[in-house]
């Protein structure tokens, strides 16, 4: 699956978690811009893992700060 199609699916998944309606682009940061706390991160990560049938371990999560990095990581994990 290409990056565009992956991104489109993640765009839909993040909607319910984007409570403040922040305009999201590749540079949007999860902690600073979207103000995700640890519980929100867990639920959001679980939603993505279930959608793509992948594991995003805590180790991998530590490398992901922005929305663009997340999309790239999912593309890579999905192979």
């Amino acid at each position, binding site marked *: 699956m290409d990056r565009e199609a992956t991104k489109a699916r993640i765009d839909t998944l993040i909607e319910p978690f984007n409570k403040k309606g922040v305009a999201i682009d590749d540079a949007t940061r999860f902690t600073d811009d979207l103000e995700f706390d640890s519980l929100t991160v*867990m639920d959001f990560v*679980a939603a993505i893992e279930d959608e793509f049938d992948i594991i995003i371990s*805590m180790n*991998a999560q530590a490398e992901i700060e922005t929305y663009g990095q997340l999309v790239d990581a999912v593309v890579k994990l999905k192979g």
Partner: protein
Amino acid sequence: MTDAVSQPDQPETFQGGQSDLFSKFDPLIQMRENLLASGVEDPFGLVMERVLSPTTAICNGRETILLGTYNYMGMTFDPDVIEAGKQALTDFGSGTTGSRVLNGTYAGHRAVEQALCDFYAMDHAMVFSTGYQANLGIISTIAGKGDYIVLDIDSHASIWDGCKMGDAEVVPFKHNDIEAMEKRLKRIPEGAGKLVILEGVYSMMGDIAPLKEMIAVAKKHGAMVLVDEAHSMGFIGPNGRGVAEDQDCLDDVDFVIGTFSKSVGTVGGFCVSNHPKFEIMRLVCRPYVFTASLPPSVVATACTSIRKLMHAGDKRAHLWENSRTLHAGLKDAGFQLGTDSPQSAIIAVIMPDLERGAAMWEALLHEGLYVNLARPPATPANMTLLRCSLCAEHSAEQVQQIIGMFKRAGAKAGIV
């Protein structure tokens, strides 16, 4: 003269302004200042001036009932336990000054490990200097690069730190959610080593895990299972072996982690296991090797206490009665509790926010009752909790007194 002598060890001047590594704590410093500015007694600065018994102490000048000490079985003042400690101090001195693998294994260390093997009916026991180090050591050592750790999101800090110290991939799942756990186990690449980490009792809310179902799922997917039974030892299960024993699945647990600092009544941690190669851990587990072993008096008190806990059925029954009475009393008084029914010796009272939680905590202290104030980030869902841990030595009368104190303090703090 060589260059090394003529040159200073460090640069003499800093380039630019010195950065303050403590800046990252500013939000917490501010939160604490705001809390204390409201005039509340510092919930994290309590001093016990004298300890009168497992259930009473003089705190900040007041005689206080202790309801937040994890001293579940009240062994801290048991005469046999005290006597064993005194004897060991006399016979073996105040400390070992050495690692377990060098000069720090005394007869007492062997004896307490044998007591643990007997208590759990398991083949191997390894004693660490604290419970924290037991989790840190076992988890970081057995799960290495390329292995996967699947763990409950509400796991204790020592479990998380053990994960962080090792090189395994760390995969958390929603608290007590069997389906979420199974989904993650299914997705782990074929051939990778798997460790599932669970707790018998989760200490913040006092709820227990459905271990029987969860362990069955873990085994189905070829995972090894580690269960932290810190808050259940001595109390839950027919022989006090914990929640896994109570749910009849202890045989399927590969590693049980426990502590001496709760029911056993001293300090120290341990892992018990039937794994045939378990003894190699003594050579490869860094938090075991690179620290001094427990003092002789500590292992002697622990050994005596553990052997007495094997025959503590009456105390277990009384502690359950205390837990049920307090849970019902607080629920009837209108407090919101962490569990619908009493599941352990911990009863968590949920506070609306930190300010009112601290006010309630202080009101209870003025009534003569000590409980733990637990606040984010240690708590699930960022809750503020007043955490009560009962003791088998609390009398039925004390439990009634405690309920009365909660009612008065709750009214004063505007909680109920």
